[in-house]
C-alpha cells in the first residue's frame, strides 16, 4: 500500500470513529477503548527508537507524564484548547528526547536505557516539588465541555486519541519505509558499518529520540482531560514504561504492525482483567506474558509468523 493510500485508510478510520458514539451507547467502552488507543500511541512511539533504531527506553512514563503535565500546565496557565495542549506536549516530548539522547547516545546502548529510568525519577521528583502543578497530591483539571456531537467527554477524548493514534501510526510507517527507517535499521544492526556507509548515526538517533519522545508525550496530553485529575504517581507510573516495552516486544519490533498488534492485544487483556479479575492482576499479566515472549518468541508475534514462512522461502530459493 502506498503511503497516501495508507494515510487515507487511517483518515477513514478517524472519520468512522466520529460515528461510534451513535452506535455504541455505553460510555464504558470509550473509557476502556481510550486506554487501548493510548497504548497504541505509546507503543508506536516507543518502537521508533526502541524497535527501528534498537535503543531500549525504559522511561516511556517520563515522556507520557511530561506530556500530561505539559498539557495540564498549558491549560491552567493559558487556558489553551486541547489541540494546542497536545502540540505543546509533543514539543516538550521532542525536547526531552533530544536532551536525553544528546547526553547519553554518545555512549552505547545500555547507558541510554539507564538514563531513561533516571529521567522518570527526575521528572516525578520535579513535579512532586512544584506547587503550581499540585505537587504530590495532584491537581484537578476541569476541561471545557466537549463538542455536543460526541455526547460526553469520554467519547470525545476517545476520538481525540484515535486521531493521535492514526497520526502516530502513519508517521511510524512513513519513517519505516523511508530512507530514515533504513538508516535506523542500519544503526540497529551495526553502528560502525552504518557510519561507514555515510549514515550520520548521531543525528539520526537524535531524530528518532525526538520523534519517539514527541509521540509518547502526545499520548499523555489528553490524559488530564480524560481523568479530570492528574497526580505524579499515576502519570509517571512504572506500568506505562513496562507496557511501552512489552507491547512492541509481543507484537514484533521490526515494523509498525508489531506495536499496534501488541498494544491492541495486551491493553485489551488488561482492560478485561481489570474488570473481571482485579486491577492489580494486569501487572502480573504483563510480567508473565513478557517473560513468555522473551523466552519463546523473541521476535514477537510477527517474528513467529515469518519464522513459520521461512522454510518455504528456503525451498523455493536455494538450489538442491
Amino acid at each position, binding site marked *: 500500500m502506498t503511503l497516501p493510500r495508507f494515510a487515507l485508510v487511517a483518515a477513514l478510520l478517524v472519520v468512522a470513529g466520529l460515528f461510534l458514539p451513535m452506535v455504541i451507547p455505553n460510555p464504558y467502552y470509550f473509557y476502556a477503548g481510550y486506554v487501548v488507543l493510548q497504548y497504541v500511541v505509546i507503543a508506536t512511539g516507543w518502537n521508533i527508537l526502541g524497535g527501528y533504531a534498537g535503543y531500549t527506553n525504559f522511561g516511556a512514563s517520563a515522556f507520557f507524564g511530561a506530556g500530561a503535565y505539559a498539557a495540564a500546565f498549558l491549560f491552567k496557565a493559558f487556558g489553551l484548547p486541547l489541540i494546542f495542549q497536545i502540540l505543546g506536549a509533543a514539543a516538550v516530548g521532542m525536547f526531552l528526547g533530544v536532551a536525553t539522547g544528546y547526553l547519553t547516545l554518545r555512549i552505547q546502548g545500555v547507558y541510554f536505557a539507564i538514563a531513561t529510568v533516571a529521567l522518570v525519577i527526575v521528572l516525578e521528583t520535579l513535579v512532586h516539588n512544584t506547587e503550581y502543578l499540585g505537587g504530590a497530591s495532584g491537581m484537578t483539571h476541569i476541561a471545557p465541555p466537549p463538542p455536543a456531537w460526541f455526547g460526553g467527554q469520554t467519547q470525545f477524548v476517545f476520538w481525540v486519541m484515535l486521531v493521535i493514534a492514526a497520526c502516530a501510526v502513519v508517521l511510524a510507517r512513513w519513517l519505516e519505509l523511508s*530512507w530514515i527507517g*533504513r*538508516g535506523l*535499521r*542500519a544503526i*540497529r*544492526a*551495526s553502528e*560502525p*558499518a*552504518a*557510519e*561507514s*556507509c*555515510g*549514515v*550520520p*548515526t548521531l543525528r539520526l538517533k537524535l531524530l528518532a529520540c525526538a520523534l519517539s519522545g514527541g509521540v509518547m508525550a502526545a499520548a499523555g496530553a489528553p490524559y488530564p482531560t480524560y481523568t479530570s485529575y492528574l497526580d505524579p504517581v499515576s502519570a509517571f507510573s512504572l506500568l506505562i514504561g513496562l507496557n511501552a516495552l512489552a507491547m512492541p516486544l509481543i507484537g514484533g519490533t*521490526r515494523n509498525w504492525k508489531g506495536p499496534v498488534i501488541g498494544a491492541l492485544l495486551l491493553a485489551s487483556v488488561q482492560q478485561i482483567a481489570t474488570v473481571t479479575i482485579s486491577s492489580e492482576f494486569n501487572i502480573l499479566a504483563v510480567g508473565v506474558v513478557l517473560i513468555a515472549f522473551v523466552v519463546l518468541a523473541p521476535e514477537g508475534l510477527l517474528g513467529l509468523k515469518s519464522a513459520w514462512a521461512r522454510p518455504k*522461502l*528456503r525451498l523455493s*530459493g536455494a538450489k538442491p
Partner: protein
Amino acid sequence: MSEPLLSVRDVSKSFGAIKALGPVGLDVAEGERLGIIGPNGSGKTTLINCITGFFRPDTGTISYKGQDITRLPAYRRARLGLSRSFQIPHPFTGMTVIENLLVPMDYGATSARKELENAEEILRSVGLAERRDHPAEQLSQLELRKLELARALAARPAILIADEAMAGLSEAEIDDILSVLFELNRAGVTVIMIEHIMHAVMRYSERVICLETGQVIAEGSPEKITSSPVVQKVYFGEQTAR
C-alpha cells in the same frame, strides 16, 4: 608522481599509555593497489580507523584529494568516497541483501537515482545476485565477506579499504575475492588491502607497506618486501616460529 589521492602525515594514536600508532606517514596515488601488512597489534587497523574517521588521531593530518579531513566525522568521509569493509563482517541484519546495498546509496554522495539497478549490478559483480532477497543473517561466511565488499562498492568509493577481507576463507574463495578486487581496480578505484594472507596481498599489491609496533619499517614492491631482512625478522620469522 602527481599529487597523492590520500596523504597521511605524522599521524599517531595512543590508548592510555599504549602507543598504538605512529607517527606514521604515507601517500596513496590514484588508482594504486597498496598492501599493508604487519603482525597482530602492529597498528594496521588503528591506521585504517584514523583514515576512515573512527578514531581521531592525537597528532598529524590526513588529507584526501587535497582537502584536510583530519577532523571530519566518519560518515562525511564515507560520502567523500572513502569506503571500508570490516575485519569481522558487519552485515545489516534485519534487511535483505539488496537492501544492505541501498543504505550507502541512500546516504552516499551518489546522485544516481537508478539505485536498484546499480545495486543489482554490484551484486552480480561479486556473485551474490542469487541471494538478492535473502535476509543478510542467512548468508554463509564467504557470502558475508562478499556482501561486506558489495556494500562498500555501493557507496561508489574512490578508495576502498579492505580490512582482512579474506581472513578464514579457502583458497578458491580467496581467488574469488581477489578477482573482484582486481576488477574494481581496473574500473579506477584505489584499493588499500590490509591482509595477513601473504600470497594474496603479494599477488595483489603494486606496493606494500609493513607496519611494526605502529611504525612503517619497510616499504616497496612485493618482491622487495618479501626479501627484506627486517620484514622477514618481524613478520615471516614470527609466522614460521608459530
